[in-house]
């Protein structure tokens, strides 16, 4: 396998000694078929043990290694070196506080995810003895795309509204709310409404659409939010009519 010398420019930040982040450059001998994550692993193993970053599966299913590479939010295990010419700049995900180096503070997202009740809210809890839920392929298709989210946060990094206002619930959380709302086993839409249909929920989204462009799993959170806007708006208006539910 042929080798290639890559110049990696990585944003560093050590809270115990730095006042603000700075770029550090590494000259990394790489194999042609490597991804950016491989280059980072080489740096950590052979050149600089202090470099900190998250990663796990190395096959774009776990969502751990989200970073901004040459200005674009990507999974570092899905960023192939062959697609880059010249210097490669690696930064932590945008719109999140930096904990250390390429590690960001995710707490805000976790809170928001919990707030949309990302689980089946069933009409009646079924015991195991009662048997399984039945669902047709068509019913599955209705929400399947939105279930593919791996919580990698690339969408939050790309979303300018989240960057401008941290209170925005955000693409992934809203897409997941939509995933459960569209699930035939779930009746929790009204339970989620006070978060989803709040000022900081779907209504803070202005359909920039960057989230769907960067999503490595083609979840299309922008589409999920727009679809939710329509049903939510109908719910809101009809709730004022006689017989409408609040």
């Amino acid at each position, binding site marked *: 396998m042929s080798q290639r010398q890559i110049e990696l420019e990585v944003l560093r930040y050590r809270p115990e000694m730095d006042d603000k982040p700075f770029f550090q450059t590494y000259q990394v001998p790489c194999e042609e078929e490597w991804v950016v994550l491989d280059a980072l692993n080489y740096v950590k193993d052979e050149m600089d043990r202090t470099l900190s970053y998250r990663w796990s599966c190395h096959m774009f299913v776990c969502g751990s290694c989200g970073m901004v590479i040459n200005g674009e939010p990507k999974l570092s295990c899905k960023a192939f070196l062959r697609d880059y010419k010249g210097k490669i700049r690696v930064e932590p995900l945008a719109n999140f506080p930096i904990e250390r180096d390429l590690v960001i503070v995710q707490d805000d997202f976790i809170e928001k995810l919990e707030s949309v009740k990302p689980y089946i809210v069933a009409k009646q809890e079924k015991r195991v003895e009662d048997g399984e839920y039945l669902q047709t392929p068509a019913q599955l298709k209705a929400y399947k795309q939105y279930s593919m989210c791996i919580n990698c946060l690339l969408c939050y990094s790309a979303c300018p509204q989240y960057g*401008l206002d941290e209170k925005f619930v955000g693409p992934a959380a809203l897409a997941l709310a939509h995933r459960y709302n569209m699930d035939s086993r779930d009746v929790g839409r009204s339970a989620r409404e*006070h*978060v989803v*249909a*709040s000022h900081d*929920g779907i*209504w803070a989204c202005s359909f920039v659409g960057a989230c769907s462009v960067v999503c490595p799993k083609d979840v299309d959170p922008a589409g999920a939010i727009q679809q939710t806007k*329509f049903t*939510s*708006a109908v719910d809101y208006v009809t709730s004022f009519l006689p017989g409408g539910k609040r």
Partner: protein
Amino acid sequence: MARSAKAVPWFLFAAGGTVIAFILPVMIFVTGLAPAVGLFGDALSYETMQAFVGNWLIKLILLGVIVLAAWHAAHRLRVCAHDFGIRADHTVAIVVYSVAAIATAATIIALLMI
């Protein structure tokens, strides 16, 4: 968090955006670009327009297009203000929707006068 009332102007925004996506380019062409190069000269003469707009169906269509366009633009301008860094959403909303309401009333009055 309470449910936001943004749902209502959003409906008008979506309806308006759809209507103007279909009809605005050709309307701008007919009222502004074509007469400038001498096309449709007679169509925009006073007599022709009087007769045309005098038709109640045309009045209804014009009412729909103009009012929806106004509310669409109002809501979008509200979002634009936020995107440009203006952090006074409540005030901006009152201003833009008031203008849209005035535009609505004005259109109705003008159409009744013709």
